[in-house]
């Protein structure tokens, strides 16, 4: 690790990708993440990489498909409407087993919505916005340091499991400035060669990378392979943070930047003598059901807080399975909840 530097969120994620050995970036401008696209246009040139501004998000994801299929570490960044446009291509990449990293800086929706921070795309990102039976590993950072580490981790997970991976960020994450310590860059030459990539049939049989088989029995086999992979991801790739959960009476669940705000709400509650804690899922797929289930046995109330109408709430309920009450507090459309209003929402619930 080097020294700490002050950076903006979008740039922190971009620089992390470069340090992870990513040398190919395709993207299309969209607020609130255009600075990341701009950063990559400068930086890729400096490191001898590839930057190309595509004609659309639809083209972007298919360029990623192409670059990934010839073995490159490839990335894009976008925001909600742009991510919607990429869904078809992501579904193709999932079944063709093509690694790639997508950064979705989520903004208020639906439709054109606004350009303020939101978590309203949880269903789309975590449950799969495209067609077919696929899942994507999803990481939700709550600080820029964590965003850097998760971005680098995302490239390794993508390659290890041959899958697209998503960094679930929001406008707050994209625009904030924080000191960050970057790790030493990886030499792209040291990334192991991909023995499935389309590199020309030299000294070997020709090979194919597709998401396609017209024979349902063969396609089912491809599907079962995917499911086997997802099972392994569920077993091995869960990440979460626990904050002041040793002696909890009530538990908050929140991810990403909301997780960070809830930490302040936890402190307010503790000052008032309420033993609150926070469970912050970092991997949203795989969702850390088991650990949350264990924690929920210690409390009567598991309160989910999101910048959405309650999407992660469904996963929380699946973890809690009725062992505790599962109230919800959320703000929509780009409105950021404050620690005080979260604390007030908790008090209202406890008074019930």
């Amino acid at each position, binding site marked *: 690790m080097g020294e700490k530097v002050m950076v903006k969120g979008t740039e922190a994620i971009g620089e992390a990708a470069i340090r992870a050995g990513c040398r190919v970036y395709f993207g299309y401008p969209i607020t609130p993440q255009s600075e990341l696209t701009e950063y990559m246009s400068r930086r890729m040139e400096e490191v001898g990489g590839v930057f190309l501004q595509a004609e659309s998000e639809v083209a972007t994801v298919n360029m990623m498909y192409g670059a*990934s*299929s010839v073995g490159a570490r490839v990335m894009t960044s976008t925001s909600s409407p742009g991510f919607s446009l990429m869904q078809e291509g992501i579904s193709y990449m999932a079944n063709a087993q093509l690694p790639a990293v997508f950064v979705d800086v989520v903004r208020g929706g639906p439709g054109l919505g606004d350009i303020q921070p939101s978590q309203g795309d949880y269903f789309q990102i975590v449950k799969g916005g495209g067609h077919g039976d696929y899942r994507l590993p999803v990481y939700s950072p709550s600080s820029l340091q964590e965003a850097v580490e998760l971005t680098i981790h995302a490239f390794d997970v993508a390659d290890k499991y041959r899958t697209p991976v998503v960094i679930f960020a929001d406008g707050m994450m994209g625009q904030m400035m924080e000191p960050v310590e970057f790790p030493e860059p990886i030499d792209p030459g040291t990334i192991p060669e991909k023995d499935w990539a389309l590199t020309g049939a030299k000294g070997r049989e020709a090979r194919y990378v597709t998401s396609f088989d017209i024979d349902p029995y063969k396609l089912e086999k491809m599907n079962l392979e995917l499911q086997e992979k997802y099972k392994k991801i569920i077993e091995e790739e869960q990440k979460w943070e626990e904050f002041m959960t040793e002696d909890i009476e009530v538990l908050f669940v929140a991810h990403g930047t909301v997780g960070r705000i809830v930490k302040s709400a936890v402190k307010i509650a503790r000052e008032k003598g309420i033993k609150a804690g926070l469970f912050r899922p970092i991997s949203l797929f795989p969702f850390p059901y088991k650990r949350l289930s264990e924690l929920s046995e210690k409390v009567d109330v598991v309160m989910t807080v999101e910048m959405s109408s309650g999407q992660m709430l469904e996963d929380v309920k699946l973890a809690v399975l009725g062992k505790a009450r599962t109230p919800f507090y959320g703000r929509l459309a780009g409105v950021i909840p404050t620690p005080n209003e979260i604390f007030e929402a908790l008090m209202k619930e406890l008074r019930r």
Partner: protein
Amino acid sequence: MEKLQQDAIVLAKMPKSLNKKEFTYCPGCHHGIVHRLVAELIDEFNLRERTVLVAPVGCSVFAYEFFNVDGTVAAHGRALAVATGMKRARPDLFIITYQGDGDLAAIGTAETIHAANRGERVTTVFINNAVYGMTGGQMAPTTLLGMKTTTSPYGRRPEKEGYPIHIMEIMRELPGVAYAERVKVSKPQDVPKAKIAIKKAFYAQLLDLGFGIVEVLSTCPTNWGMDPVEAGKWLDENMVKEFPLGVYVDKVTEVMKEKGVK
């Protein structure tokens, strides 16, 4: 026997770049002829070991299986975006997209125009048979006026269904294009001409000049409701009128001469 083999003159053989797999195309369809031309050229240029083929969605969705080169099949219309990603990431590879009219000129129009305009160093073989073949003969962007299809049962009318789109004429306006030619393969004498056109589109990529595209007017006897001979005749009499054959962009021939390549 050995002596016989030594003395034998090979009159016809399978190109190395084609698989032995049987084509799934209908009798009288031109895909087979064009596949062979592309495969022969990959062999002649000795490109087999660095070629990646991007197949489309449409009748030639299996093209990647018929060619004995690395390959993939892109989402419908996105072959040129996929090809762009490949070539940008690995400029040493030789990238071919093989696309039909629905794929290239309807759903993929944006990808086609922008890849061409950027001068992507890739080669596109564009099969125009004026219908959606795979889905059962629906109206294509290149369907002729008056032509009946399963979704233009009254014949294509300009006031309702609009006009056939002319891709080569559009290519002429894009500075990134190094070679664009429209050919046909309906008569034996057309075939060598088509091969030379595809060869020049290969050179557009190999000599780093820009985007290369060849449109091949093709038959679809099954969906046109004709036998193969009739279909060939219909193409010569009708399609050529709407889609004039010829070279639309050529920044290649001169450089070939300069470099002394044939």
